[in-house]
Every structure is written in structure tokens, then in C-alpha cells.
């Protein structure tokens, strides 16, 4: 038992490339967990939501040559209410950010976010611009990052498989969305003032925090 709980040693260069699930942990996953994860991993429905150039590669991934319906992901839903995965496929601009956050808040749990491309991960080539948010992870919790500009369709599928691995490692007992106390609050909506204004930056008296 102790053995199983011991943290697995992962070489540093692989630290972010592997989901840590020891054999013990996998074995200790109950049958219910496995069935639960099997069902979820094979029916990850993305939101039909394209932002910029990367969205074109996302559509290419969905279409004839790469066809991610082989992973049960072909049902791209235009409504966030019916989707599990938000693929941020492109440059996040300040003007668009409130809408993205609204979309995210409208998605039912369990929900995942995949940052596709340099722009969504960290701002990309347009990072220095006045209307560009440097990475969606400043506002949303991102599960998988796929670098590249644009990532090729195969790179995107690789990222989606990484997401499946992550889903595999979750346990129904621990996931936050059944936990009444710790269920995450919706992300506070930023407001477009003289610049993008995140309510979290402002103290109770409504002044900007340093």
C-alpha cells in the first residue's frame, strides 16, 4: 500500500510530458472509475469554436485526412452546454475574452480546456500587441498545451490523446465536480473599460491593486 502511494520519479525533462499514474494507482482504480473514464475519454465533445488561424488546422483535424471522430470527438457542438472540451484555437484578444469566459462558464462539468498553438498558450507572435491576451491560462485553467504556430493536425491529435490520458488518471471519488464544497466558482467576468479589467485585480473598494 505504501509502495503504491510513493511518488513516482519522473525525469525532469519529461515532467510535463507524462501524466503520473503509477501501475498501483491504475490497479487501485475501481471498476467504476475505469468504466467512468472509458466512457468519458471516448466521447470528448469539443465546442465548435474557432478563434484564428489555428482554428483552420482544427477544422482540418476534424475533416477528411485526420478525422478525429476516430476518437469519438466528431460531435463538435456549437452550444457550450453540450460540450466537454473547449479548444482555444487561436489568438485570444481582449475584446473576445469576456465571450470566451462566458462560454467556459456555461459549459457543464466535467470540462476541459486545451490551449492550441502558441497564441492560446502564451500570446504567440502577437503577444506584444495592445489587444492580445498573453495566454488563456491567465483566466482559465488549461489542461493541455499544444505548442506550434500552427500545430499540425497530428500535433493537435497528440494533444487530444494527452487529454485522454489525463482523463484516464482521474478518479470519480476525487474529481472536484461531485464535491459540493469545493466545486469551482464561475470565472469572474472581465470588463472592457479603458483596458481589459479583471475584477480579481480590484480590491473591495473598487481600486486597482498594485
Amino acid at each position, binding site marked *: 500500500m505504501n509502495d503504491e502511494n510513493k511518488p513516482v520519479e519522473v525525469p525532469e525533462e519529461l515532467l510535463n510530458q507524462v501524466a503520473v499514474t503509477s501501475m498501483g494507482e491504475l490497479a487501485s482504480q475501481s471498476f467504476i472509475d475505469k468504466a467512468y473514464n472509458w466512457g468519458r475519454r471516448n466521447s470528448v465533445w469539443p465546442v465548435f469554436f474557432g478563434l484564428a488561424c489555428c482554428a483552420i488546422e482544427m477544422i482540418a483535424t476534424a475533416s477528411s485526412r485526420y478525422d478525429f471522430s476516430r476518437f469519438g470527438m466528431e460531435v463538435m457542438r456549437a452550444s457550450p452546454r453540450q460540450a466537454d472540451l473547449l479548444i482555444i484555437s487561436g489568438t485570444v484578444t481582449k475584446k473576445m475574452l469576456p465571450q470566451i469566459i462566458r462560454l467556459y462558464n456555461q459549459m457543464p462539468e466535467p470540462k476541459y480546456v486545451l490551449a492550441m498553438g502558441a497564441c492560446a498558450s502564451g500570446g504567440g507572435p502577437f503577444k506584444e500587441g495592445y489587444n492580445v491576451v498573453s495566454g488563456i491560462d491567465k483566466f482559465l485553467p488549461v489542461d493541455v498545451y499544444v505548442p506550434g504556430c*500552427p500545430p499540425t493536425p497530428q500535433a493537435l491529435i497528440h494533444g487530444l490523446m494527452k487529454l485522454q490520458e489525463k482523463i484516464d488518471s482521474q478518479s470519480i471519488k476525487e474529481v472536484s465536480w461531485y464535491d459540493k464544497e469545493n466545486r469551482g466558482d464561475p470565472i469572474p467576468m472581465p470588463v472592457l473599460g479603458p483596458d481589459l479589467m479583471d475584477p480579481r485585480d480590484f480590491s473591495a473598494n473598487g481600486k486597482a491593486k498594485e
Partner: protein
Amino acid sequence: MSEQIAAAPVDLISLFPDQVKADERVGYEGFMVEPKALVKVVVALRDELGYDYLSSVTAADYIDDHKIEVVYHFFKSTGGTNLTLSTQVSREKAVVPTLMHEFPSMELQEREVYDMFGVEFTGHPDLRRVLLWDGFEGFPLRKDYKEAYFTAEKKPFTNRWPEGHITRAEDATPYKKNVVYPDNLKPFEEYDPSVENLLYSGMKNFLPEDQRELNTEPVMVNFGPQHPSTHGVFRMAAILDGETVMALKPVMGYLHRNHEKIGERNTYLGNIPFTDRLDYISSMANNFAYVVAVEKLMGPRVQIPERAEYLRVIMSELTRIVNHTWAIGFLLNDLGAFFTPALYAMIERELILDIFEATAGSRMMCNYYRFGGVSRDIPEDAMAKLKGLVYERLPRKIDELDIYLSENEIIRERTEGVGILSPEEAIAYGASGPVLRASGVPYDIRRAEPYGIYDQFDFDVAVRYHGDTYDRYVIRLDEVRQSLRILQQALKTIPEGPVLLKNPYNVRVPAGEAYGRAEAPKGELGFYLVSDGTANPFRYHVRSPSFINLTSLEKMSLGLKIADVFAILGSLDIVLGEVDR
């Protein structure tokens, strides 16, 4: 070419001896007009001299002279080179009369100039910010505007080498979300989260007089920015009476990536990969237009090897095929033929993208053109495959697409007679590319003002005469066929030889201005460049066809059912990277 320009000045200056003078700065050509006389001069230009196509308006901030210059580019719809008209106003009180009533194509563009430079156009009925949101602080393209991650005026930044200790830009600003708040920031609560009131009140103004009071029947509906049929993050606000559109406003800027500001900080060479990301479906064509503009500035000293000229044409025409098949596929998507036509179109696209990948290195962001040539030669196996595609597969597949779709009764009924744009309107609204030609104006820059070696090829300018959605669909098939014709000739006669003579990384161009344009798949893609002789452009403006084609969207949609609006939008074939830049 030069005769036309030489012929015009006499007329204009003799017509308005007091208000117009020739622009005498080194490297500039065109006319300087008094702001007060602008409307008069423009009307004379249009009615007496035949310059009926006002292609673009933009501005440049000459901060050292304390002036903002508003620049207009005119063309004749029968062909020929541009005529530049500029007018200078002071930076503090930048007011220019609107030309929107003479040229409706100015509606969105003047709003853009207002948004970026703070130039006020008196008489414009709906002068709001277009790419940013109302309430934004500052005018970004003025030279004294600095963004939150500002490092230095010009690239290359000196803190990258030799002492390039890495920092993330986030760590440099106080609010790590790349935001700089003004000093006189009001408390958070005072901001209204909906900044759209101006938009809606603006729309009321566009309604007919007796329907101004939105009391009961008409409904305000927003489509987008997250909507599967808007081709990206585009938004339309419409006032509907039942299902009929009574007023419609495009709302854009959700993908405004500050292309021009970044471009002015960047070097000439460094802008090439950024142009890839304008119209990201047809990056090669963007490269082409940009190098045409820069080579125009550089003057005759650039030598382009013959093989490179051929490769430029080949790649640009392949891009047109990619773009048009994609556009057809997604137009059908919008009509409700969910995805099957798009999937078939995408097969051909993927095969062509393979060739791009083998030649330029990337499927989408090709970064292939250089000043004075192209970056690499096409490998032999890719050439063999390309020949197979051009001579055998693509003609067959285009015919298949034609059989598959063109006679389909549902498509015809949904598109024929819908969204009609007459030739006069098309010109007045500044439409270009397939949209203009589907309205019966045979205007194609490859013929009207040939660039590259297009004058050596035998092809027809595709033109259709109804100006409806169906014609805008069929004309794309026609154009693909013409592109194949060009390709077939080019592949037969392409000579051997080098593709690039020299490739310096510190490109400098002489001081002056230039407006270079090319027939991109979506229409006239123009680049307005002002050089001050340094390694970075002083002004870098993109005249984007998608953006300007949207000006006529409202005109085409009024009185139609809301479902038709999506068909019209699909037939305009916009790409948001280019609309918002």
C-alpha cells in the same frame, strides 16, 4: 503606367489651383488637398476624371510635423494605377469631412481610421470604434501610443543579444495580464459591462423614420461572435421584424491582433511571416501582395529571376484554388449541407498543402516570398506531383464539384436572386475580387494593373452578371478553372535557374510611399507603406478585401430573411484574420 499618372496632375491642379497641389516630398507622388475642399475635389475626380473606385483610406501620424495625414487611394474601375490624394490636419484637432455619402465604401474604413488615429470624420452618421471597443483609452496607431509590453520603438530589440537574459513580458507590467490602467481610473463598479449601447443606438438611426421607437415588434438579435456560421469570431447585430432583416450591423475586432502596430515596429523582412497570418487560408497570396508593395518602394534595383517569377505565380494560383474550394465548401455548410461538400473540397486542399509543405515548409504559414524572389526552389518530387494534380486530378475534381453542387435545386433556390449587388453599387461599396466580378464588373488586378508576370499568361477574367449569391458561388468555380489554365501554362514554360539572387536580412528601402496590391483570392489586397529610409516601415497599412467587402453586407441583406444573411455572408468569403488584422 506613368503616362496615366502624368496625365492626371494637370487636370486636377488646373481644376482646383488653390486647394490642390502636387505632393512634392521625396518619394511621394499624388496630390495634397485642403481638408475643406476634399469633398469637392473627390466628386470632380469621380465624375470628371473617371476615378470612380475609392479603394482605401488610411492615415499616417507624422509626429515630427505635428500632422496626421489622411491618405486616399483612387482607381479607375476600367484599370490602371492608383491616384493618391492626401490631406493633412493637426494632431490635436484632427477633423476631416466624411466621404461616406460620395463613396459608401468609406463607412467602415473611416471608422477604422477614427479608431486607430482619432481622426474625426464630420458627417459620418455612425462614427464609433470598429476594431477596439468604445471606451478604450488611446489611439493605438499614433506614434506616441505605447502598448503594455512596450520594449523599444523598433526591432531588433537590443535586450535580446548579446546580453539576452530572458524575461517574460508579463513580468514587466504591473498588472500581469498585459494591462496598463490610466492614472485617473474610475472605481471598478462604475464601468458598465455592456459597452454596446452606442451600437444599438446607432442602429436605431439607420432604421426608417417611422420605426425608430423600438417598442414592440422588432427584435434585436445578435449573431456571434461565437456562431458556427460566421466563419470565426465575427458578429452581426440585427433588428428583425419577424424573420425579416430591418437593420444589420457587422461588429468586428474580436480578432484584432494589432497587425499594423506590430508591423511598424518590425523590420521589412520580419513582416513577411506576419502577413501569412492575415488571410490564413491563402498565405502565399498575402506574401505576394506584400513583396509587390515593398519591391515597388525599392524601385528597379531589385532583380527577380525568371524562375522565381514563375514560382510566385504558381504558388499564388494554387492558393486561389485552395481558398475557393474552401469557400465553396463552407458556403454550402452555411446553406445547411453540413460538411460533406466541405470534406470533399478539403481533400484537394490537403493535397495542395502537401506541396506547400514540401516547398515552403509549412502547410499554412508558408513564409515563402522574399524581396527579389522566393525562398526555396520546389523539390522535384513535389513538382512531379504538382503536375499530376494540375493536369489530371484538379480539373476532374472541379468538374465533379460542379456536377455535385451547381445544379442542386435546393442550392439554386436558396441562392438565386438573393443578396443582389448591382455593378454600380459594387463599385461604390468598394467590393473587390469575386464579389465585384460576380456583379458584372470585369475588374481583376492581374489584368487591370498587371504585376509579376501575369501579363504573359493567357486567361480570362471570370465575370458573372447577376450579382446574387449564386453567381458569387459559380464565379469561384470559374476562377479555379482559370487558375488551372494559368498553372498549366506556367508549368509548361517554367525555366530553370536560381530563385533568389541575394537574401540580406537587413533590408532597407529608400524613403517614400507606395501602395502595392495584388489580386488575392478574396479581392484586392493592398499594402500602403511609408518608408523613412530606416530598416522599419514608418507606416504599414493593410487594405484588406474581407474587411471592405463587408461594407456592402447590410445593403445586400436588408429586407431578406435572416437565413439568407448567412448565405450572403458565406458568399462574401471573409476570413477574420484579415477583417480584424
